[in-house]
């Protein structure tokens, strides 16, 4: 019987994964619309050496079980609101509340994002920083100025001919039954998955959809202090599991010395 070698190894592996997730959170502390992730662990199967039993006096004696360590159970994205950072850029849009922007991927599928830093394509369309088209397409007529986007997503421009405001479209947002089930694609993009449920689309500021804030960006919801304390905890837990492996090894060696 090896005294818990694999058990302690599973503990080290779990803490390693935790550090990986924390490192990614910290790396994205300045990523617009980024949502931090968190690891969840659970204990592995137990070996029951003796089940609960009644002693001679009738008292119930606790079962005797030995656990076999820990495993990573889930990594969940924490979808709390990030702070709104005022940028003053007219095509920066922050979401306050539930919902995602929809963008078209090169292969025609739709991806979802909270990153509202848009710019204009050569055809006057609103696109993301990496060039994906915002859906439904909003096209700014040539020579227009003063783009304004209302809280409810109404996009209007000033007509250069007569100086009047002209409504050219309305932003739409997407929502999911279980947004934490969305798949991260990188590039601030998320995709629908079996776990997220089907998309429902609506207008900002209606039916519980987010309000939009022009001239601002949603900052990452990563808090450095929290990540750093988690990092320290993970590091210590890693060391203690390594310590347990050393102890087990020492026990086996002293037994080995005796036989020799």
């Amino acid at each position: 019987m090896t005294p818990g070698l694999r058990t302690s190894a599973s503990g080290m592996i779990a803490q390693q994964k935790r550090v990986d997730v924390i490192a990614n959170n910290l790396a994205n502390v300045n990523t617009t619309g980024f949502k931090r992730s968190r690891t969840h662990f659970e204990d592995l199967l137990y070996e029951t050496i003796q089940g609960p039993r009644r002693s001679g006096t009738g008292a119930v004696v606790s079962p005797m079980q030995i656990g076999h360590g820990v495993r990573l159970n889930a990594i969940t994205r924490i979808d709390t609101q990030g702070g709104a950072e005022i940028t003053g850029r007219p095509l920066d849009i922050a979401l306050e509340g539930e919902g995602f922007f929809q963008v078209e991927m090169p292969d025609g599928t739709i991806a979802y994002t909270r990153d509202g830093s848009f710019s204009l394509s050569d055809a006057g369309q609103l696109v993301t920083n990496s060039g994906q088209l915002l859906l439904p397409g909003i096209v700014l007529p040539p020579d227009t100025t003063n783009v304004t986007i209302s809280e409810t997503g109404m996009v209007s421009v000033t007509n250069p001919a007569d100086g009047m405001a002209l409504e050219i479209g309305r932003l739409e947002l997407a929502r999911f039954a279980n947004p934490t089930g969305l798949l991260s694609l990188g590039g601030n993009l998320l995709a629908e998955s079996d776990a997220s449920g089907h998309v429902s689309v609506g207008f900002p500021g209606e039916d519980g959809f987010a309000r939009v804030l022009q001239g601002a960006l949603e900052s990452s919801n990563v808090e450095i202090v929290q990540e750093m304390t988690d990092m320290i905890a993970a590091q210590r837990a890693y060391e203690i599991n390594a310590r347990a492996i050393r102890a087990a090894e020492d026990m086996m060696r002293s037994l080995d010395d005796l036989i020799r």
Partner: protein
Amino acid sequence: MTVPGILNTARTLGYYTRLQAVTANNLANASTDGFKAERVSAQSFAEAFPEALASIDMRQGTVRDTGRTFDLALEGDAFFVVRTPQGERLTRNGGFSMDINGFLINHDGDLVLGEEGPLHVRGHEVVVEDDGTVVVDGARADRLRLETVSDLGTLRKEGHGRLVATTPFAPVRNATVRQGALEDANVDPLLGTVDLIQIQRAYAANIEAMRAMDGVMSAVARDIGRVP
């Protein structure tokens, strides 16, 4: 030639090996939400060597804030009830989420049960009150089913943070549900490390005792009966 001393020492080594395995499992689960450590106590067997007696340490773990709607922590002696393919199980791990049908599930996908069955929690605002009442968009949906057993010592661990009740459920006396928080494992890493050192030393000491007895026996075998 009977040598009870050396056999008893060998059994003692078995006891410390088991103790080490339990301590290693506790330490490996120091970051597992809702985990309850195992405690091993020695019971003297025929007053010759210790026999391991394990029990689950049911002390409260620290409750830490997470701010997530579906993170629930329990304070007190109760457990959440989840429906697994093997039947109803108890757990203290309240890291829940919502499935695509709007039901509350844990990270293994097991349904979390309310007093009227699976809990439907789809809505814009979900509030879980101190007594476990679940309010969705201002309307009472159900109440979390909280259970305990009369003798906590009879609970059996199954992995996945689940506990199997082997005795009937008993009324819950004091339990508070905290929303947006999780219960840490009740493992003390510092004490665990001290335990490891003690186990290691005790093991080494017993090995030394075996070596000494072996020396006596080999001297007996070598010298007794020899004509000088």
